């Protein structure tokens, strides 16, 4: 079966986020006065073959932990769906 894993990687709480802070500082200058906070992260779409959803989730969790995120500073949120 083919599955699509969406992996969102974001900084752990308490880790400085200069990218998000810089974007947040720029927004009022563009007129976005209502924005109160911005966090920067990145997302990945990973297509993979697996026997079932649980197996696909397990593969996605493993690759997110071992490569896509650095657990020292980042955490990941994973959603898997069948294609």
């Amino acid at each position: 079966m083919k599955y699509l894993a969406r992996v969102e990687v974001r900084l752990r709480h308490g880790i400085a986020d200069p990218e998000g802070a810089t974007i947040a500082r720029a927004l009022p200058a563009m007129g976005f006065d209502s924005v109160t906070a911005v966090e920067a992260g990145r997302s990945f779409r990973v297509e993979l073959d697996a026997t079932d959803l649980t197996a696909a989730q397990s593969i996605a969790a493993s690759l997110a932990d071992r490569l896509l995120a650095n657990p020292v500073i980042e955490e990941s949120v994973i959603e898997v769906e069948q294609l």
Partner: protein
Amino acid sequence: MSVTVGVVVFPGTNCEHDAIAAVRALGGDARLVFHTEDTLDGLDAVILPGGFAHGDYLRPGAIARFSPIMDSVSSFAASGGPVVGICNGFQVLCEAHLLPGALQKNRGLTFLCQPSSLEVTSTSSVLTARAEVGQVLRVPINHFSGSYTCDLDTLRELEDQGRVVLRYVDNPNGSVASVAGISNEAGNVVGLMPHPERAVSSLLGSEDGAVLLRSFLDAAATASVG
């Protein structure tokens, strides 16, 4: 004392020749080791030089960690061999879990290319053995992701064990506790963001990096005898 230092080249590494020139200027020998090689046989020490290994894609050092040569670097380090990671090499060592913590984007998102003042804070590492605690060295930095980060427990452990070997005097990149360089527990693996290989001649503006690389060559000579 004739030691040979292996200088690892990943796709995108760009400081390998500076590292070789610096080692040779200080009386050692050095040769390039391509990242697809799988042995460090015949080498007395290893330098992971600066640059943009694998384009710095994902995170600096994240892909380089899986290069074939890294298994050999890990075993070499585990057997006590001297290893230093400079700039991108430091990032690779952290990603490979040979050193704790991580290097994040600089505070203020500024690429920093400038001289920096470093205080030697421990001499129990292969890179700082010949220096003196409190000595201030002028060594250039050249990085975007050089802000050292780790959790508080790790920082306490590093400080208690004398493993923070260099600190910035003015902390240009926002590193936790002004950390510029750290070592592993045994002191044979060191990572630092500043470039000692670019400070080995007054022509380059500073010779202060020489004491660090001489320490490293000393350690290589000892390791090769042992």
